[in-house]
């Protein structure tokens, strides 16, 4: 991989890792609350629509999901190597493709709100 491309991949990985390290414990805690049947008022339909409908909420959600997806994809690529899968090119294409599909879906759903 060329140095220029490597720095982009690494930059997305680091940014996504930092974001998901900081934010996902709270996200998991919210899913836990929902699973327990204690849905917080901010996650009720009207409130969440208002949040995701505003451009600030939209951009925040998009950035968090987009960067976290790329972080996970890049790390998963290395994990495949570490577990003995040596077909890096195929693995890289697959994980980045899934991340790209997830990113497009995120953008589409946010656009629709």
């Amino acid at each position, binding site marked *: 991989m060329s140095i220029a491309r490597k720095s982009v991949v690494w930059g997305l990985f680091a940014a996504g890792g930092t974001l998901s390290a900081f934010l996902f414990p709270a996200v998991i805690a919210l899913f836990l609350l929902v699973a327990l049947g204690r849905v*917080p008022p901010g996650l009720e339909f009207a409130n969440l629509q208002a949040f995701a409908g505003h451009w600030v909420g939209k951009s925040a*959600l998009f950035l968090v999901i987009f960067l976290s997806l790329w972080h*996970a994809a890049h790390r998963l690529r290395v994990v495949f190597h570490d577990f003995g899968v040596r077909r890096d090119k195929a693995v890289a294409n697959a994980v980045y493709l899934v991340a790209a599909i997830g990113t497009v879906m995120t953008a589409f759903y946010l656009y629709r709100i």
Partner: protein
Amino acid sequence: MSRQPYVRPMPKASWYLGNARYRRYMFREVTCLLVGVYCALLIWALAALSSGSPERWGAFLAAQQNTAMVVFHALALVYYLVYMTFDWFKLAPKAMPVQFGEQKLPGSVIVVGHYVAWIVVTLFVLWLAGVLQT
């Protein structure tokens, strides 16, 4: 190359098992699966939300509410904190050392700064979701 360099034989798929540091590294790296799972859950939530119907959002919430999900989220939360969040903070001063002229900011300051910022961010997200308003 005419010479044959010596390559230490190493099992491809189980090289990390004999060393505590390598095992910890692997425990940390597989957290990417949890990040992926929660991204997928968030996208699923956005799909339900963007349908514009409160019923579909209610159906999404109902689909999350079962014992298996409670157990999964509880285990995921502990695992994620230990191996993703706290490990990321621990490595931060090595990945992003901060230097003022000749002086290097001590790593402990950077780590503590991360923990403080993390508490603020977590409280903010929970406040945003309305957890802290009763």
